[in-house]
């Protein structure tokens, strides 16, 4: 096996603090993500992991701190802008478009690239049709990649949980992101579903060289697939480094003591 090469910092989060009214969800979090690496953010439930992602892709606006992406620094992000810059994400508790088929869910991931105007779309004329086909092809490659060919036209609502998670990932991949934020991709899965998901994450990482930021509350899952790990607890960063370093970190051990993982 050739070692995969990790590039320089692509995403840099500096001193992020986030409050909901009085509640402090994140306090002064800083960490960086390098190109092509798999970066895990772990921590017990309610440690503020999801809030962190939501700050990165502009769902929440942190009160303090800054986020630097590819050299551009932002006080806080704006969802569309983030998407345009090539950051995609999946959601912890599935946020699929229930009323739509697998294909259509994935197609929405391509919408940023749609050029043809409403009139053309209404007439399904030349360019509109061509675009549709072009994107469908991309989407089909992802369907093939995630091995969900048998379900492409099923409404996602009817799919079992494990598959819905895959579709969620697929929708993110359809954006051809440079950075992929995964919010507990293995939550609520059985063992082999978890293994599949791990395989997909790794494949995404080395097939497309996508940088991956991965949230898990279950240490065991992520430790062996991620290059570096950040540990959050009660909105504070208590550890950062390679899997082994983190495992050795006393604070981390303390945070995880008693928690059933």
């Amino acid at each position, binding site marked *: 096996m050739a070692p995969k090469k990790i590039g320089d910092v692509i995403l840099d989060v500096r001193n992020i603090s986030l409050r909901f009214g009085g509640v402090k969800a994140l306090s002064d979090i800083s960490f960086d993500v390098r190109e092509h690496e798999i970066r895990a953010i772990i921590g017990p439930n309610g440690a503020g992991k999801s809030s962190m992602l939501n700050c990165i892709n502009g*769902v929440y606006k942190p009160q303090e701190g800054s986020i630097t992406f590819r050299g551009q620094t932002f006080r806080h992000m704006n969802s569309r802008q983030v998407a345009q810059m090539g950051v995609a994400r999946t959601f912890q508790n599935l946020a699929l*478009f229930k009323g739509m088929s697998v294909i*259509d869910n994935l197609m929405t991931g391509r919408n940023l690239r749609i050029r043809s105007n409403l009139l053309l779309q209404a007439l399904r004329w030349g360019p509109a049709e061509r675009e*549709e086909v072009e994107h469908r092809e991309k989407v089909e490659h992802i369907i093939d990649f995630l091995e969900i060919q048998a379900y492409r036209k099923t409404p996602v609502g009817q799919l079992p949980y494990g598959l819905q998670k895959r579709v969620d990932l697929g929708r993110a991949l359809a954006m051809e992101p440079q950075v992929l934020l995964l919010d507990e991709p293995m939550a609520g899965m059985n063992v082999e579903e978890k293994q599949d998901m791990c395989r997909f994450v790794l494949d995404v990482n080395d097939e497309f060289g996508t940088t991956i930021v991965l949230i898990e509350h279950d240490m065991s899952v992520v430790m062996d697939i991620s290059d570096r790990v950040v540990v959050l607890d009660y909105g504070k960063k208590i550890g950062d480094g390679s899997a082994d370093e983190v495992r050795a970190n006393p604070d981390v051990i303390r945070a995880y003591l008693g928690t059933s993982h």
Partner: protein
Amino acid sequence: MFYRENGQFQTSYQADQQIFPVRQDRLAILALIAFAFVGVPLLADEYLFRAILVPFLILALAAIGVNVLVGYCGQISLGSGAFMAVGAYMAYNVFIRVAEVPLIVALLAGGLCAMLAGIAFGIPSLRVKGLYLAVATLAAQFFFDWLFVRVPWFTNHSPAGTAEVSNLGMLGWSIDTPLDKYLFVLGFVVVFAWLAKNLVRGPIGREWMAIRDMDVAAAVIGIRPMYAKLTAFAVSSFIVGVAGALWAFIHLGSWEPLAFDINRSFQLLFIVIIGGLGSIVGCFFGAAFIVITPIALNQMLPWLGALAGVRISTAMVGHAELMIFGALIVWFLIKEPHGLARYWSLTRHKLRLWPFPH
């Protein structure tokens, strides 16, 4: 049962993405359209055209517009009637004030004005969630009701406040007999249904549904809620506006604002709910249902009453109608949120798998 799909394999995405990928469906729909254009005129009589077919078609068209907004984009609207009114009155003004303007142009102009109005009143939807929107659209309803009553310019200062159009026609074809009207409207409806279908199954349609199903996720994949919602409002009120113009010009001929009051808005909403939220074909089912039920009730109830020895006044029929629709709405929302269209697609599905149930 009638499906024979072996050998109907798709070798291109175009083929796979057409509206009716299955041959039997294509044939069926073509047959249906052909029948509507040729068969119906041979069979139907004046009453059928005037009292059922024409209103049915126009309401279906309006419902398509409402469905784009409510069913596909998930934005509630209680003001569709108002946008129909805008369509009707602006088309009217274009028609009488611009010399030599072709009928079609007038109708579309009405639609465009409705579109602008729709966008204006849709703006709050950018800031607020569905519930508040209900009020914004009500605002539209009451505002326009008032506008067309109180501002005489819109009714061309006609003393009675009624607008009236006559000797309509296009390309030398004068549209006066009920049959002409039916064919004219039918043409409109077919074309618009097709356009609408293309929209909802295309990129913009997916944006609308994404906003409807999970707006946060939609935003995260780069869909702009503002753009999606406003386009929904625009397209919706355009179609509704055109429908309004047709309703006024073709169906009524002369009309008052009352024709487009809040009850019209409710009626359209009911068509969409009963017919099926998020389904174009559902609009036709719903419209048919709404048009036929009252007529049926008018026939049946007195007769039933007579059986029971009670005489049923037309007023009572009206009230019964209200109750029945009210109950139906609740029933559908509880039992089958996707309305009659759902039953339709289920049947089709079963036919495809026949004799298997799943």
